């Protein structure tokens, strides 16, 4: 006889804890499921900024939040993708598709063909989102223009502390039972199958039907270490004064030995540094930041990082989330994005008691699909500089190696395993990394070079005209999204 889960307890800290409680409460409280939180003292430094992808709008809908209010309350800015200053070039990776329409047969391949003999290093003029972003423009298309909505798909930058406050208020409103703990050590009674029986807090045993474990820093034998693919060793962040212009993108700048990411907010910008240097060489990174004018006024506080993933985060009656399950280094995917993905997958497979082994296994398999795509995309940011990766099999995840090879040869992508990364993001990233397909698409072979060139030129002109009519990101924010706290 199966019964419904009635009591869920979440253990952890930070914004990921608030997000978990918020999503679960909205999805499960209507079904009479009680959500309890054991909030541990934060041992880690909370992120200063949350950078989201296009999933943000859907998430607001799920949580019943008004997107506009969230952006305003969080000093938010919009984000059409990421600008890269890397490989000696300046290029853009948007969320949205290339060209004017999604799923145009072989438009990308035609563009690669046109650009092959040139020294153009980015696809910006052929992407509405990239063009707009690089011109500092932004607008959200109306519901009557789903084509433009797709072409200008966006995420946001949010002040993480404000965002956390919104989630906390939501949890409170939902009636989540919240217990702040003073000690971060919990006595967790777990059997060999991973089932948690009780958790003892201040001498009192707590029971639940299902547990979510977001506790960071636990050593776990089942972790896969990704240091060889994602060599981030140290991380630092600080808030800097606002820049004169608010760009509708995050900027990723390659350093010797790392990356620096800047994210604009309406009340300042956040600088995040991801180093893959040894501790003794961090001074080199700091020197580069000074040269770039990005160094903080005080001493940089570095945090050690080691990228890893838990192969099967759902064990027994407990799902590990956040840093307890995965750390991708934070350059491309934030911890919060990984938590959200995991929760959406979990709710789709929401179990009854006793928990089915196949359901759990299936969740872990789906999770691995996300992990594989996310790892490939993140690892591509740490490739050695090269115009060919055909001989790098031993240094790369096999799926990434196959993807690089296929792109180098045909300008195509191997099939995705999840929604972690869009095809467009891959095209822009691989092109930006300097890869150029060897073969042209036969689908376009009946067109002359001039015809292909002219077709891509027309698209470029149409995009330029479209972008010319858009307001600047700052104008748009000032008019529709001024900060609530001003």
């Amino acid at each position, binding site marked *: 006889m199966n019964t*419904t889960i009635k009591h869920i307890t979440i253990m952890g800290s930070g914004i990921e804890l608030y997000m978990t409680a918020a999503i679960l409460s909205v999805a499960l409280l209507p079904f009479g499921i009680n959500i309890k939180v054991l909030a541990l003292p934060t041992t880690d430094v909370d992120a200063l900024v949350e950078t989201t992808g296009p999933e943000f709008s859907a998430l607001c809908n799920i949580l019943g939040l008004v997107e506009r209010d969230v952006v305003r309350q969080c000093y938010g800015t919009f984000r059409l993708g990421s600008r890269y200053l890397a490989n000696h070039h300046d290029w853009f990776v948007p969320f949205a598709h290339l060209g004017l329409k999604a799923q145009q047969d072989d438009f990308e391949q035609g563009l690669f063909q046109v650009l092959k003999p040139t020294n153009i290093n980015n696809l910006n003029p052929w992407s509405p989102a990239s063009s707009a972003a690089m011109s500092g423009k932004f607008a959200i298309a109306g519901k009557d223009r789903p084509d433009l909505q797709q072409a200008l798909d966006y995420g946001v930058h949010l002040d993480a502390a404000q965002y956390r406050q919104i989630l906390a208020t939501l949890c409170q409103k939902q009636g989540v039972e919240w217990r702040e703990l003073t000690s971060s050590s919990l006595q967790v009674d777990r059997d060999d199958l991973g089932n948690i029986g009780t958790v003892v807090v201040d001498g009192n045993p707590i029971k639940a039907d299902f547990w979510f474990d977001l506790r960071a820093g636990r050593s776990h034998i089942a972790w896969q270490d990704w240091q060889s693919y994602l060599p981030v060793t140290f991380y630092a962040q600080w808030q800097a004064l606002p820049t004169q212009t608010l760009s509708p993108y995050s900027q990723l700048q390659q350093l010797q030995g790392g990356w620096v990411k800047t994210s604009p907010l309406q009340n300042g910008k956040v600088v995040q540094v991801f180093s893959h240097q040894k501790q003794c060489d961090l001074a080199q990174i700091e020197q580069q930041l000074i040269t770039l004018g990005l160094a903080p006024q005080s001493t940089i506080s570095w945090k050690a990082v080691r990228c890893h993933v838990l192969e099967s985060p759902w064990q027994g009656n407990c799902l590990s989330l956040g840093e307890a399950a995965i750390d991708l280094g934070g350059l491309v995917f934030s911890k919060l994005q990984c938590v959200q993905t995991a929760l959406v997958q979990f709710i789709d497979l929401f179990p009854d008691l006793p928990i089915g082994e196949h359901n759990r296994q299936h969740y872990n398999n789906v999770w691995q699909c996300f992990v594989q795509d996310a790892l490939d995309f993140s690892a591509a940011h740490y490739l050695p500089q090269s115009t060919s990766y055909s001989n790098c099999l031993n240094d790369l995840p096999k799926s990434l190696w196959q993807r690089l090879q296929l792109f180098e040869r045909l300008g195509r992508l191997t099939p995705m395993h999840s929604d972690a990364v869009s095809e467009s993001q891959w095209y822009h990233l691989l092109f930006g990394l300097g890869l150029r397909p060897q073969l042209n698409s036969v689908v376009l072979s009946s067109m002359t070079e001039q015809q292909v060139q002219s077709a891509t030129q027309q698209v470029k002109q149409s995009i330029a005209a479209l972008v010319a009519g858009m307001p600047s990101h700052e104008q748009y924010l000032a008019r529709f999204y001024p900060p609530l706290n001003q």
Partner: protein
Amino acid sequence: MSTTQNKTRQQVVILGGGSSGWMTAASLARFLCPHHYCITLIESELIGTVGVGEATLPHLRSFNQLLGIDENEFMRETGATYKLAIQFPGWGAKENSYFHPFGLSGQDINGIDFHQYWLRLRQHGKALPFDQYSIAVQAAKQQKFSYPSDNPQDLRADYGYAFHLDATLYAQYLRKYAEQRGVQRIEGKVAEVRRHEHETLDAKRGDIACLVMESGQIIGGDLFIDCSGFAGVLIEQNLKTGYENWTHWLPCDRAIAVPTERIENPPPYTRAAAKSAGWQWRIPLQHRTGNGIVYCSGYLNDQQAQDILLKDIEEPPTAGLNKLRFTTGKRKATWQYNCVAIGLSAGFLEPLESTSLYLVQIAIQKLLEHFPSRTIGDVERDSYNRQMDNEYLRVRDFIILHYKVNQRQDSDFWRYCQNMAVPDSLAAQMELFKEGARISEYRQGLFLPASWLAVYLGQGMLPKRYDGRVDLAPLDSLENYLANFHQQLVNAVNLMPLHSNSIKLTKQMAPSLYPAAPRSLYGINA
């Protein structure tokens, strides 16, 4: 080597006509520039075609659209009728029947899949059969057809459609299309296949160099496409690629086909009725009806199969019997050296789910995406093979499912199928469903959850439990909701024209007065 072909152009040689040969030729002629590519198709009128794929999937609409073929003209030229579903009598219990529609059954409620609610109502004896909540099934039952709506809010948007067509006429139609676009057809049989013995600038050792015809003519090529059917003249007889035999999972190995007279108002669905050791198809075209029996020779001899077929056909035969033998499986690699096998030469899966032309179509699409230069690289070949392997495996598992979850106790054949081991991938999928009514949704390949549900629930494979969250809804409200939903479907179908009237319209309609082909099997909302 004496060859009349222009060596400055890349030579593509297709061996074999029939549906797969001419679909390939037409597609290549549509996209490959005649200044850079020369396409030759070799076929012999002395070798018959199998005529596979008279029943199709909605994907064929995308294929025709890609070629720029007008759908109404296509229907006139191929004697096609519309198809909304496949009916499966006798696959669950012997006396039961269900439909696998090209559409969704029900709609999600509060973010939880419809079938979870249905399972709860069924437990209380208050649900209609699962397929009755599909508009495509309602239309099929009433022999109605109209185009799906393009408004996602409309109930009539929840389905797609395919065709029943005359495969021989389709091949002829595409031949005309291809020849008009420069494909050169050579009549005759291949006597010898010659391969490169040494590496050259454009070819690797072992690549096929040329085909020597019985007439002595030599056809050189850079890329050879084997559409020679079961024989696999290039991919198997010459390149010895090897074959994965799947008969332990799909034991049927023979078929007998017979055409019968046309049906006045043809049903807009294929029928695949289970028999004592196999199944019998019925495919209504405009000018005739296709019939046939697929059976396992280990349990049914040829005469018995023939007797069953002729006893159960509903219209008088119009021609003699056509007998076939096959081994279900797939080539170990469908692209070997400079040879790509497409259609029956690549593999054979019985047409229970009308996948034959889909597998041809997807092979062509993948070939175009991976089309090589004169010197073929391992990258494109390996990627193509990986993707095609996946396509075949997905279809294989879904077809095995029908046999595995049969509920029949009336023959050794069906008992064997119930007890046989299945591939791990299918076993995992089935266990997931049995445990809690969940379905693993593939990212690549055919058949999404709507199809799996149709078979599981249609054949009576029920899970141990459903999502407990649906118990929160009051039973009466749920019952009313489903009853209203069903009534809305029936009302919508009542307003649709008869299938035969919709077919008549294609004879008068201007080109393009039909909806664009969606990429999904189940309509625009899937």
